[in-house]
């Protein structure tokens, strides 16, 4: 059949009509010739031809793609019926938009953070190099010397690249204007291997790497933010950490680096890293980051040649890796921090290639669990939504029994009728899905801005892509089938039964009841899950972190940014401190390198004298450098010894303070006061320091961590520039912010102040992920509860209406109004109890899966279980209250008359 016929089928139909008319005329003529009267002749002709409409219909169908044709009919019919019951349609579309929207929003986040491929050429060919060491785990990188060797001896990759994503801000000054940027140091083949091109200028190349040219490439985003898309940016000289660099290009808009969630602003050749951060690179020493084989700082990726397997690539590079590890071990021999255990760990390190097309794994690992939890929660919410809509559809199908019966009688196929119902479901789901998609992107944006406003460094692109659109399409169709199929089939079957009697109603409410039980059970699971997450968030917030978190104001300054270097920084800081302490309302003030509950360093200390047998040279401890009166300001309780004071200066005897866990680990029951240790790998100073104090444990990075050994050194010299102040106030800390800013300005007018916040705000920020998961799951749990209540209300109202006659009879026979409403309530209680019977064990099982996200309570926490169950029961009774009351108000005479 040609398509031209399909599109011209109306024309063909007219042709046939004319042809059949012609036949009738000819036959009539013949009949007249046989001697019939004109009337008889015409009637005989008609009889002979039969029903001309049926003939035309048959031919018409030959001309149409029957499926399309009837689909269009179904769709039009569905639109008409849906438009007629506007309230029903609106309710269904709104709840679908909510359910699908929630799922799409969470999936968009999962897609952006976990699934999406990097916006580079053929990302699936990229492999990430892994150096798995027994001591350092998977977080160990590669030395620059090793990378160069990989590159020289490579026969399996069409390109290789190395980079270091600085996990701190660099200062970037443009024509006298200070500012910060996220930087990365890259090899010369970084951009060519990725296939990332520039919008203007050129990218960094191998010559830049070889000659350590001070050149920089900025991302499009930074170009927009900092340079207002000025095309004259190429050739401009900027100061990165006070070292001059020339901008040579701007990358295309989609490029953000290789770590989803922490986008970079500026890239420079890795050989220029010593100019940017001399304190870390230590050029010219045996620790020089560009030559020391034991400084494993680089992430390495390669683009596999077509036709080469991963195993072959590993085999090819294995000898190079072994050699590099031998050199690492040899290179650090004789260093202050050397030990046999460390040597051994290098020699037994393993080499692996992982797929790198989605970027580095750090973000995926951090966010995958909470995101999958949210995905599970939203899927359950969608299930409740579907159950609710299925119930509505059932009620509607019931109301349409007459129509269905008529259509069946005049010969509609049953499958065709099911399809008609499904068409309605699909149409509804399509509308719900469309609105859901819009809602999802709005929700995603606000979620992300909420998270980044609270300081979490998470920047993801949540533009709709084929993954997200496909997902939404899939769940829309899936939900349509889920809520549409059973009611459709039931409606058609019921109608046939109902022509034989009233058997249908009972089975309708049977399915309806099953759906309500499902809703109650799933809602309860969601409520209990949300309850557990909310309560553990509360536990975390109320938790005593080892210091007094009330009334502490934090802020940071970067004296580097206005030209103070090394030794000059701390005198400035101390001058600022004096000014701050004079402010009325300030009780004490100090400063530190890492602010509390944000981060800490890590070091492997060497201990002078005997240590317990289980102590290994590779054991590492957390480390922070802090100012005078640090412990008294934060109110970290003392165990023994003293605090740091103003006399602990660069030229004074070297001292250290340790926490309880560290004291116990290294010195057992003996007193650590007066013992000596050194931390050469932290500050390349191998001279001994005297331990002068022991302090109680606290939380250092986040509230989840278990007690860890911690070492404090006095802060003399700022390496990376930023110093955080901790100010203890007698009054609300917000009320001294102004005075503090003025005091800083009075001392150093050009010094920028950043990150002003209270310590409790900082704690809230460290809980951003937990709070997000808890509040979203709470919201979704509440929605599920409301949906279940609405479903229950609908079912009971329907049941009461159906049984009006029966109720009338009961009342006529003497049942009291109380008995009647009791009867209705009893039915609800039955359903709720069955729902609880399924829901509680399911919730306990599900809670075990999120055990690792819970804090301070068990997965079967009885209080949460009781509260959630009680709330659910109350809401269920409330939802039945109105129908029950209506039942008790039935007037027996009226009821019997309507029957």
């Amino acid at each position, binding site marked *: *059949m040609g398509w031209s*016929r399909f599109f011209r089928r109306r024309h063909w139909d007219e*042709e*046939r009509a*004319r*042809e*059949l008319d*012609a*036949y009738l*005329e*000819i*036959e009539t*003529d013949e009949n007249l010739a046989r001697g019939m009267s004109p009337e008889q002749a015409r009637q005989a002709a008609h009889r*002979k*031809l*039969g*029903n001309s409409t*049926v*003939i035309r219909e*048959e*031919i018409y169908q*030959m001309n149409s793609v029957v499926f399309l044709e009837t689909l269009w009919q179904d769709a039009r019919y569905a639109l008409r019926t849906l438009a007629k019951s506007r309230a029903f349609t609106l309710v269904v579309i709104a709840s679908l938009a909510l359910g699908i929207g929630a799922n799409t929003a969470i999936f968009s986040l999962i897609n952006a953070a976990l699934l999406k491929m990097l916006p580079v050429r053929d990302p699936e060919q990229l492999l990430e190099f892994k150096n798995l060491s027994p001591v350092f785990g998977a977080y160990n990188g590669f030395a620059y010397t090793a990378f160069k060797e990989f590159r020289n001896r490579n026969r399996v990759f069409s390109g290789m690249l190395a980079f270091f994503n600085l996990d701190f801000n660099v200062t970037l000054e443009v024509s006298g204007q200070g500012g910060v940027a996220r930087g990365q140091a890259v090899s010369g083949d970084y951009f060519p291997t990725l296939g990332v091109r520039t919008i203007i200028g050129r990218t960094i190349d191998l010559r830049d790497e070889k000659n350590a040219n001070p050149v920089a490439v900025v991302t499009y985003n930074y170009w927009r933010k900092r340079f207002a898309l000025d095309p004259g940016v190429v050739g401009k000289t900027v100061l990165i950490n006070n070292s001059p660099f020339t901008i040579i290009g701007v990358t295309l808009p989609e490029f953000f680096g290789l770590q989803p969630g922490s986008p970079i602003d500026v890239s420079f050749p890795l050989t220029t890293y010593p100019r940017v951060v001399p304190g870390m690179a230590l050029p010219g020493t045996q620790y020089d980051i560009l030559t020391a084989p034991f400084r494993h700082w680089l992430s390495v990726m390669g683009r596999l040649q077509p036709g080469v397997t991963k195993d072959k690539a590993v085999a090819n590079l294995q000898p190079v890796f072994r050699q590099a590890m031998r050199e690492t071990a040899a290179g650090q021999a004789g260093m202050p921090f050397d030990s046999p255990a460390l040597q051994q760990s290098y020699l037994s390190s393993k080499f692996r290639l992982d797929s790198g097309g989605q970027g580095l794994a750090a973000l995926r690992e951090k966010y995958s669990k909470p995101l999958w939890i949210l995905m599970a929660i939203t899927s359950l919410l969608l299930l409740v939504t579907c159950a609710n809509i299925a119930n509505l559809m059932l009620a509607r199908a019931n109301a349409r029994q007459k129509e269905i019966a008529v259509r069946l009688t005049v010969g509609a196929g049953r499958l065709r009728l099911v399809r008609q119902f499904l068409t309605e479901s699909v149409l509804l789901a399509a509308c719900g899905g469309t609105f859901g998609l819009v809602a999802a992107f709005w929700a995603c944006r606000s979620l992300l801005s909420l998270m980044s406003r609270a300081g979490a460094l998470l920047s993801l692109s949540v533009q709709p892509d084929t993954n997200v659109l496909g997902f939404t399409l899939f769940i829309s169709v899936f939900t349509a089938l889920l809520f549409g199929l059973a009611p459709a089939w039931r409606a058609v079957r019921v109608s046939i039964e109902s022509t034989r009697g009233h058997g249908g109603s009972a089975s309708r409410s049977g399915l309806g009841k099953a759906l309500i039980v499902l809703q109650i059970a799933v809602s309860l699971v969601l409520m209990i899950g949300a309850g557990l997450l909310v309560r553990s968030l509360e536990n975390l917030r109320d938790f005593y972190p080892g210091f007094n978190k009330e009334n502490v104001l934090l802020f940071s300054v970067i004296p580097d940014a206005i030209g103070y270097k090394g030794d000059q920084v701390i005198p400035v800081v101390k001058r600022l401190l004096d000014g701050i302490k004079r402010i009325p309302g300030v009780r004490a003030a100090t400063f530190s390198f890492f602010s509390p509950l944000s981060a800490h360093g890590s070091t492997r200390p060497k201990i002078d004298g005997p240590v317990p047998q289980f102590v290994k040279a590779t054991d590492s401890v957390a480390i922070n450098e802090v100012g005078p009166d640090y412990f008294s300001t934060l109110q970290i309780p003392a165990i023994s010894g003293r605090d740091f004071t103003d006399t602990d200066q660069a030229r004074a005897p070297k001292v250290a303070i340790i926490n309880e866990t560290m004291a116990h680990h290294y010195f057992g029951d003996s007193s650590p006061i007066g013992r000596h240790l050194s931390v050469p790998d932290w500050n390349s100073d191998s001279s001994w320091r005297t331990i002068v104090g022991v302090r109680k444990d606290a939380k250092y990075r986040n509230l989840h961590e278990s007690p860890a050994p911690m070492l404090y050194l006095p802060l003399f010299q700022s390496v990376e520039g930023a110093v955080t102040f901790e100010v203890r106030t007698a009054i609300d800390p917000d009320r001294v912010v102004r005075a503090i800013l003025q005091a800083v300005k009075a001392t150093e007018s050009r010094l920028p102040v950043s990150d002003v916040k209270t310590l409790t705000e900082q704690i809230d920020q460290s809980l951003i992920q937990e709070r997000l998961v808890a509040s979203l799951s709470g919201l979704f749990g509440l929605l599920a509860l409301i949906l279940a209540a609405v479903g229950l209300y609908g079912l009971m109202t329907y049941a009461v209406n159906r049984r009006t006659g029966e109720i009338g009879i009961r009342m006529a026979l003497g049942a009291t109004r109380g008995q009647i409403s009791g009867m209705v309530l009893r039915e609800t209680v039955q359903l709720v109890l069955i729902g609880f019977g399924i829901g509680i064990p399911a919730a306990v099982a599900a809670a075990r899966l999120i055990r690792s996200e819970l804090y301070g309570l068990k997965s079967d926490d009885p209080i949460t279980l009781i509260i959630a169950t009680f709330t659910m029961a109350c809401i269920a009774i409330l939802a039945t209250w109105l129908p029950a009351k209506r039942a008790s108000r039935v007037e027996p005479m009226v009821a019997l008359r309507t029957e």
Partner: protein
Amino acid sequence: MPSPKAHPLEGEMLQGTLDLLILQTLVLGPAHGHTIAHVIEQRSEEVLQVEHGSLYPALHRLENRGWIASFWGTSENNRKARYYRLTAAGRKQLIEHTSRWDRLVRAVNRVLRTAEE
């Protein structure tokens, strides 16, 4: 042409038969629907009654397949009528269908005769 779809044998045979008869009728020359039905009935000595309800759909089907073509003409009684004629493809089909029909009839006859013995 091999049958494009696997119809039940019975339906296939009957439908195919009407198609064959229409094609054979048109060998004599162009004719309109009424004539075609008439000719088939006469030549089968009224044994085969053509259902008009299936004649026109059959004509349409054959035209769709390109075996016959149609045009508007004037009937014997000076009335407008839609005429059908055999196309080259239709002629080929007729030959194939006829030989297939012959084989079928022979085969059925053989079976029936064996049964009588």
